[in-house]
């Protein structure tokens, strides 16, 4: 779990005087689902392209599966879907995958399995150009799955999918992870990342703002106490949770407190004669954290391009 299979060090891409990606250093460990989270235009796609060897960094370096991006030995062990699946419009979905199977030198028989996994078997013989956005996206994922790669780099894999398709895609990704594959996916959907990713990197304006587990990012859970008298409740709360973990807000007391210590808090409050009207856990969503993090962030330079 701890072996790093993607490492970037100060990765930077400059287009003219625009910094699309600015000094990004991230680490993806073997077997995890890593969410690359950021608004549109934050530099997610450009970073992924650099990891796949499609785009040359202006500065910094990346190591992927132990070698430089784009090295054939690395590319063979990586499955990729990059911003909008690119296939031959006149070929059927199945024939498109046959072409890619030939490029990879893997058996064409694997194509039907891949179509099956993304639920496209029924439409495999229709021309790619007749596909809906969601179907194109699923074909892109099927192509990434060909050859059973160790590492999957998926750029907005749920883009264009309907809710059922999104749920299927999340299940597929979770399934890949349980089978020991590593998944690096980008998304602008916080709920999705919160649900399936072990760790996340938050990027905005080309800069990596944070990198940690979802739980760490969301921080300690908070507890809201509505009790009277307020000053006495505050004193008890400070005794239980520590002076710095307590603040007065909304006519009650907010504590940063582990959920397991709520009974202690209740007991102390009752013992000191405070009337408790309510104690409720208030968990921050990743969305709250994300907006807090990106609100203060202003680009040092004109906003980066590239999704």
């Amino acid at each position: 779990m701890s072996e790093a299979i993607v490492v970037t060090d100060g990765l930077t891409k400059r287009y003219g005087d625009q910094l699309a990606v600015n000094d990004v250093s991230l680490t993806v460990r073997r077997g995890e689902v890593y969410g690359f989270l950021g608004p549109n235009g934050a530099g997610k796609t450009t970073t992924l392209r650099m990891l796949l060897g499609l785009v040359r960094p202006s500065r910094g370096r990346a190591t992927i599966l132990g070698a430089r991006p784009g090295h054939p030995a690395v590319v063979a062990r990586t499955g990729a879907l990059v911003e909008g699946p690119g296939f031959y419009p006149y070929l059927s979905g199945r024939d498109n995958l046959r072409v890619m199977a030939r490029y990879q030198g893997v058996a064409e028989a694997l194509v039907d399995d891949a179509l099956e996994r993304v639920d496209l078997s029924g439409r495999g013989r229709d021309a790619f150009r007749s596909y809906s956005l969601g179907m194109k996206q699923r074909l892109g994922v099927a192509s990434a799955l060909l050859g059973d790669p160790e590492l999957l780099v998926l750029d907005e894999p749920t883009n264009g999918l309907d809710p059922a398709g999104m749920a299927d895609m999340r299940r597929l990704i979770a399934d890949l992870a349980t089978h020991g594959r590593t998944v690096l996916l980008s998304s602008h959907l916080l709920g999705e990342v919160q649900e399936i990713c072990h760790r996340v990197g938050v990027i905005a304006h080309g800069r990596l703002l944070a990198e940690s587990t979802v739980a760490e990012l969301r921080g300690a859970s908070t507890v809201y106490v509505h009790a009277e008298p307020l000053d006495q409740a505050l004193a008890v709360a400070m005794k239980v949770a520590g002076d710095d973990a307590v603040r007065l807000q909304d006519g009650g007391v907010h504590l940063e407190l582990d959920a397991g210590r709520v009974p202690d808090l209740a007991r102390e409050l009752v013992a000191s004669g405070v009337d408790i009207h309510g104690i409720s856990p208030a968990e921050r969503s990743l969305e709250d954290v994300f907006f807090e993090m990106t609100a203060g962030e202003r680009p040092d330079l004109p906003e980066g391009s590239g999704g």
Partner: protein
Amino acid sequence: MTRHDIEPTRAVAQSVGVRGLAASTSAEWLRLRTWPAVWVLVGVWLALNLTFAYVLNYIAYATGSGNFGTGEVTAGLLADLLPEAIPRVYAGGLPMFGGAIMMILAALAVGSGFGWGTWKTVFTQRPSRLVAFGGTLAALAVVLVAILAAQLVLDFGAAMLIAAVESQALDWPDLGELARSLGGGLLISGMWAAAGVLIGILTRSPAIAVGFGLVWSFVVENLLRGVANLISGLEYVTDALPGTAAGSMAGALGPAAGSGGDAAPGVLTVLSGGESAMLLTAYTVVFLVVAAILVRRRDIA
């Protein structure tokens, strides 16, 4: 990006490269031979060739119209329509019309991949960029050879039919001359296809590539050749243009040796056969090397 854990040895890299080239060629061949655009272009070229090399000339001969109706000229016209004449007729349409078709084909095959995003997909499969690009070139070469072979078969069919209808003796062409003619045709087509590959890569757009290529081969070169008559020194440039080399190759193989048939448009006699062969080869190599460098170095958007 200095040292890394996995750097295959040179020998391994080479064997991976050979296998990758074979894999890439078969992949690209699969998608080219199922592409309707390829079949349309092949059909257009074969129809053009048949029409202008045989059908129209035969009608002119059979009706005795045009060409002042002198017996000598009509006899020459018939001579060019018989199997024996194939070596000098075969490459006549290639410098301009056939070449333009080959260029369009190559520019479409290479340029479309940028708009469709298929280069991006291909470059994330397994083969390195150069190997994958090499596979595209190899598959295009297969298509090219197939087109030239189909044209040869069609020409023989037409010529034999005319010989039979006109009760002419079936004289077979000299095999050496035929081989020379096929080689010349391959050099001309290969050069124009290589030009198509380069502009397809340069412009990253099939439409611009095709438009630019056609304007160059049909308009710019002819204008330059026209102006070269007025400005001394310019002919050194125009004598070395791709179209001049292609036209001179057809001219060296073609009707100059034969009888009364008019040379097709674009057929020139500026350079000798040897000179044009060298120039065509040089252009083909330069176009492909520049294209390969661009493929290897540029970011794929």
